[in-house]
Structures are given as structure tokens and as C-alpha cells.
């Protein structure tokens, strides 16, 4: 009872003290400003660099959010809707192992399991960290008996049960391509051209930007859409480096509807998924995608009926995917923490923000981690990566959510989604002069493990975390925004959280066109 009395007295005193201050108190420091534009908030930005098309490009987002009563827009649930021409690592892989040792100089070996992969033709194969498979090697065919035929002989003996990654696309590169100035015909003794190569992009110093394969002539010869600009007897040319296919991903809406069928609208099944492994509850080891119709994928079978929503992982990370735990970026945050909840923080009355920096790590699908509190992938989505912020104990995450672009079939858009960033748990209560929240995230264009890959590893054009799509004109107009996913909070004014990037057509310019702005 004594406790009740003291609280009543305290409340009455608080009311008495508060009343004269309401609306008539002197103004203290100006509140923070909302936004991600340096015209409003010094140094704020939504931008990327380099901004030129078809380049690897890092993303930088720096915004402030007010924490003032009546205009508080601090949200733990928000997303960065990346520029429309941004692409994150693309592609998935099928992992196979060899049943027996492979001699040096061999061009074939037997795989332990080739279920649903016998149609694989002209797909890059890599044994990461293992000597013996030379760069630019691809699988020419896989027989029904699981005999794998390689484009290049092995350069060293390979022990049994070595893991190989086969990409889920027929993009590849060769270093023996003969080009002739002003001619659209090119030849390669080893490219193993097929009719399926028509339409693939062709890139190299001997061909102009935007060139594609126009026609299949024979296994060593194709015709290009544009004439070569240089003559070479052994040019290094990539075929299909701009190809977009399905990427190893985690979908969280799956249901196992029969022994052979998985239903997952979020997975957005793709022809390139055929032959990829799928894992999840009710799915036995060594289950592979055989076909799909709409949201239903047929597998090699043996599954247990399991109601949705389940988490499934489709495919293995490709050879050029960032390694899980690679550093993928940095996050910096300023917020005013309560010293009662976080020791060492300055008193809330001082209204001084504390500053933090956190390394962002990349995790591939199948390696997502962290407690459910701050690390739950948004429902009904496919995530191609987890950006994991390693704190003292309770880590938190953002997810790279891939969405099929309805305006450009065959392409994707990407959101970096924070399902629950710990923004308000310990933040001092807002006052009219609270400093607000400062948030800055930089996403790298490449990670250390990818940068260390030998040239010619895996599928050409995929050795990056983030890049920009090619442009036929050299220019583009693209927009990125930061939006709240809390239905009750709106980042406003929207214009302050939106960045339009207009990059001029023509030859690439050396500038910071879509950077700080």
C-alpha cells in the first residue's frame, strides 16, 4: 500500500510539473530531420557506386528518422527497395560427387547421383579449392549412367567423393575463340555450341557491347548479332554472362502435398531449377526437382506430406556465390540508449545519441542463422541471402528478398528487408528535442571469397554480390526507396526516402552520378 501511495504522489507531482511545460516551454535543440537526402540531412544518401551499367556496384543507404512524439517514425520493420537495375548474385548449383578417383588428363568421371541432371549440357563445373578442374571447364553431357563428360581434361588426379558444383545455366567462357574484324562469324574448337546458345550475350574485348549469338551454325561456329571489332586467334569470350536464371533461395511458404510434389508460390519455380536439390521438413536427402507447373514442383519423390508453411531451400550456392560468413557490408547506427537498459549509455536527459558499427555478414540459403526474434525471413518470400549483423549475443538480420519483375519478365527486383531491427527496445523515450535515429548501411559489390576466385571459375558474369544490369543505351533511370513495413508507420515525406537515379546514355562517365544526392 505504501508503494501505491508513493506512486500516486509521484504521478501527481509529475502532472503538476508537466502542465506548465506543455506548449509553453522554451524550445531546445531542433529535432532530427527525416530523410535520406543530403539536401535535407547532411551526408545522407541512397546511392550506388560505380553507377554505370553492367558494373559491380556497392549500395549505400544513410537515413535519419525522427523520434519526437507526434512525428516519431522510428520503425524496426523496414525495407530498402534497391534500384530497379540492381542485381544480386544470380545462379544456383547442383552438387555432385565422383564415385572413384579421377586420373589426371581424364575427360570423364562417374557421378554418384545424377538424378534429374541428365539433360545438363554446357554447364560450368567447379571443384572449389581442389586442383584438377581447370578454369572455364564445363559439363558437355551427363549420361543416364551418370557418366559426366567434361570440356577440358583434368589437370591433376582428383580423389573419390570430391564435391563438384555444376551451375544451373549454359553460360560459359572459352579462351580459344577465333574472331575476325568486321566479321560476325566466330569459331571455337571447344565451345560445343548448340542451338540453345542462340540469344546468349557475347562479351569480350573483341566484340562490341550488347552483342549476342544470332545463329547456331555448328558445334564449333556461331554467328553474332554484331561484327567483331578485332581479330584474334584465341580470344577469351564469355557466352551468357548477362543471363539471369534462378538463384539458390529459401522459400518459407512450402507445403509437401504428396510424395513427389512441393507447393510453394513464393519459390517461383523456374526451368533452371530442374536438377537442383531441395531440402526441408518432410523431404529426404538427395531429393531433386524434376519439373514444375505453376507453384507446384515435382521432385524425385519419397517425401512425407507436410502442411504449409515450411521452409525449403532450393539449390546449392554456386561456385561464384559469396561464402557464408563473408563480410558483405557495414552498418552504422546512432541512437540514444537508456542507461538503465544498456550500461554505459549517457543519461536520456542529455539527449545525446550513442554510436555503433556492426559488420554485416552474408549467409547463403541453407545457412541462415540467428534467433527467431530478429532473424525471421518475412512470410511468403524467397530470400537469396541473409545479411547478418553480429552483435554481442542477440544478432539481427536483413534478408535479400528476390521478386520476379512483373514489368520485365525474366528479371528480378531486390529488397533488403529488416524484419525486426532492434531500434526501439532501449531507445530513450521521444521528446520534442530527441536526436532521433541515424542508420547507415553499405552493401559491398563483392566479398573476399569471391574476389579470391581464380579467373574463369564458374559461370561467367556472376562473381559478385551486387551489380547493375547492362543497358543497351548505356543509360538508365532507376529508383530506390526506403519504406516502413510497419503498417502504422510511414516514412514521410516519401520524397525524402526516395532516390531517383538518372544515368546518361552513351559511353560510361567517370563520376559519382548516383552517389550522395
Amino acid at each position, binding site marked *: 500500500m505504501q508503494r*501505491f501511495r508513493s506512486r500516486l504522489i509521484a504521478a501527481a507531482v*509529475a502532472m503538476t510539473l508537466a502542465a506548465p511545460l506543455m506548449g509553453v516551454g522554451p524550445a531546445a535543440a531542433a529535432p532530427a530531420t527525416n530523410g535520406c537526402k543530403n539536401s535535407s540531412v547532411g551526408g545522407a544518401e541512397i546511392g550506388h557506386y560505380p553507377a554505370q551499367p553492367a558494373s559491380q556496384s556497392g549500395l549505400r543507404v544513410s537515413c535519419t528518422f525522427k523520434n519526437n512524439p*507526434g512525428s516519431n517514425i522510428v520503425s524496426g520493420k523496414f525495407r530498402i527497395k534497391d534500384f530497379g537495375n540492381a542485381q544480386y548474385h544470380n545462379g544456383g548449383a547442383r552438387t555432385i560427387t565422383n564415385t572413384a578417383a579421377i586420373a589426371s588428363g581424364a575427360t570423364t568421371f562417374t557421378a554418384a547421383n545424377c538424378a534429374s541432371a541428365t539433360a545438363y549440357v554446357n554447364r560450368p563445373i567447379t571443384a572449389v579449392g581442389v586442383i584438377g578442374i581447370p578454369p572455364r571447364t564445363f559439363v558437355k553431357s551427363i549420361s543416364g549412367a551418370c557418366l559426366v563428360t567434361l570440356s577440358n581434361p583434368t589437370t591433376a588426379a582428383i580423389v573419390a567423393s570430391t564435391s563438384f558444383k555444376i551451375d544451373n545455366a549454359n553460360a560459359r567462357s572459352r579462351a580459344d575463340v577465333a574472331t575476325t574484324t568486321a566479321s560476325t562469324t566466330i569459331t571455337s574448337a571447344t565451345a560445343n555450341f548448340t542451338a540453345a546458345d542462340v540469344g546468349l550475350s557475347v562479351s569480350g574485348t573483341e566484340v562490341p557491347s550488347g552483342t549476342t549469338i544470332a545463329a547456331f551454325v555448328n558445334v564449333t561456329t556461331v554467328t553474332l548479332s554484331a561484327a567483331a571489332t578485332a581479330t584474334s586467334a584465341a580470344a577469351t569470350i564469355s557466352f551468357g554472362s548477362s543471363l539471369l536464371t534462378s538463384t539458390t533461395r529459401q522459400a518459407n511458404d512450402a507445403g509437401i502435398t504428396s510424395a513427389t510434389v512441393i507447393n510453394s508460390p513464393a519459390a517461383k519455380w523456374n526451368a533452371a531449377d530442374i536438377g537442383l536439390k531441395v531440402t526441408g521438413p518432410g523431404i529426404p536427402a538427395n531429393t531433386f526437382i524434376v519439373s514444375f507447373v505453376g507453384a507446384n514442383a515435382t521432385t524425385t519423390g519419397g517425401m512425407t506430406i507436410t502442411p504449409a508453411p515450411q521452409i525449403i531451400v532450393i539449390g546449392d550456392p554456386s561456385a561464384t556465390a559469396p561464402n557464408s560468413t563473408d563480410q558483405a557490408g557495414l552498418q552504422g547506427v546512432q541512437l540514444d540508449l537508456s542507461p538503465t*537498459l544498456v550500461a554505459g549509455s549517457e543519461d536520456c536527459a542529455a539527449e545525446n545519441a550513442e554510436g555503433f558499427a556492426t559488420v554485416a555478414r552474408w549467409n547463403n540459403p541453407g545457412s541462415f542463422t540467428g534467433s527467431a526474434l530478429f532473424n525471421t525471413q518475412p512470410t511468403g518470400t524467397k530470400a537469396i541471402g541473409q545479411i547478418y549483423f553480429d552483435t554481442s549475443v*542477440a544478432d539481427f538480420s536483413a534478408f535479400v528478398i528476390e521478386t520476379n519483375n512483373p514489368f520485365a519478365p525474366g528479371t528480378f527486383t531486390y529488397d533488403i528487408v529488416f524484419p525486426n531491427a*532492434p531500434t526501439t527496445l*532501449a531507445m530513450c523515450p521521444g521528446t520534442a528535442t530527441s536526436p532521433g535515429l541515424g542508420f547507415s548501411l553499405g552493401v559491398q559489390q563483392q566479398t573476399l571469397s569471391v574476389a579470391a576466385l581464380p579467373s574463369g571459375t564458374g559461370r561467367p558474369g556472376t562473381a559478385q554480390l551486387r551489380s547493375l544490369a547492362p543497358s543497351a543505351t548505356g543509360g538508365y533511370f532507376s529508383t530506390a526507396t526506403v519504406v516502413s513495413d510497419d503498417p*502504422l508507420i*510511414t516514412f514521410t515525406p516519401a520524397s525524402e526516402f526516395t532516390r531517383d537515379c538518372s544515368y546518361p546514355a552513351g559511353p560510361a562517365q567517370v563520376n559519382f552520378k548516383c552517389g550522395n544526392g
Partner: protein
Amino acid sequence: MRSRTLAGLVALLCTGILTASPVQAQDDGQAPDTTLRELPGAVTIGNGFSFTGAVITPPAGENPRTLDAYQAAVFVQSWLPTSIFGQDVQKDPPPDLPVYQIDIMGNWAGPVGTITVYFATDGTTPYVAFPQDQAVATEPGGPPPLPADWFVPPARVIDAFNGEAELVDTAGTQTTTTTTSESAAAPSDDDSGTSLGWTWAAVAAAGVVLVGLVLRWRSS
């Protein structure tokens, strides 16, 4: 319980008055986070977390005890921020300390269910284990995670463990609408009033309520 209810009511009135001031009436579309209303009686701490209670299981032989919604919220609030923002806090407890298992029920920013943590103390230093590799248990009966990821939170966790601490005002509690008189101790960001006239009307109303409460308390 009664005292907390009354105190919460008073606090709510004070908060309503404060947020109705003209200076703070610059609403731009933001409203309180009401996404947690799905759990009746839950007490929120912000960031989507609200709690309905907890069960504390002693190491052996003793009967479990419970924390109510408010106490559970205070307990989680007392250590969770340090697990994120704390510097150099990871530390295992001495092996001879008794370890209590705490199963906390609530809405964990979406999933509704139970998260298990562990607590130990020598009377001065508290230790909390927050196993990171656990999902929210949505059905009872499953095996709890083993103690892992120990750290040293602020000393007030000891009071919170004993059900004797108070919820700390934060931006999270400030912007969250709760559903019980207990949880109403968290300041509301309600912007329903925008005029100075409303403010003074609220002051008068609060005064009347206060007087009534005091009189009722004295007569009981």
C-alpha cells in the same frame, strides 16, 4: 496488482495530457503500433515484443513460480537490450551457481509462443543465457534449448527476476498501444487531442480521477 493498476491509470492520464500538447501535435500519419493487440493482457516493450507471462523453473526440487504479464515484460526488457547493444558482456556464470529456466510466453515480433532463457546469480552479478539457436515454441511439450550464449546484463535483472522491477520507458514502450491497465503504464503516443483546450480539460479530468482514487483508497 491493484496498486499497479491504479498507478498505470494515473500514468496513462499523465501521458495522454503530455502527448496532447500543441508542440507534439505534428502527426504525420504515424500511429501507435497496435499490431500486438492480438494477445489480450500482453504487456509490450516495443519492437513487436509483448508478453503474457513466464514460468520460472528452479534447478531441482523446488516448485516453479510464475511471472505475470507485466513482470515478464520487465524481465525481458531488463536483459534483451544488453544482449544486442552490450559491450564485452559475454561471460559464463560460475559453475556452482543454480541455474533457473525461464519460459517466457508472448508475441515475439510475429511468432506467438515461448522462448526459453536461463538465469543465474550470485546475488550481485546476474547471468542470463539466451540460446540463439531456438525458434519460438508454438506448442508446449517440446524440449527446451540447452543453456548457451551467457552474458552479464545490468544488475536490475535480479529485481526483474524476482518480479520487483518496473518497466523502463523507452521509445518502444512509448509508441506501443497495449491492452491492459497494467500495460498502460507504458506512455501512449495517442494523438487524439491537438488543442490546448483539450489539454486543460484532461488536466481537470485527471485531477478529478486522482482525488477519487485517493478518497477510495482511504476509505478502504
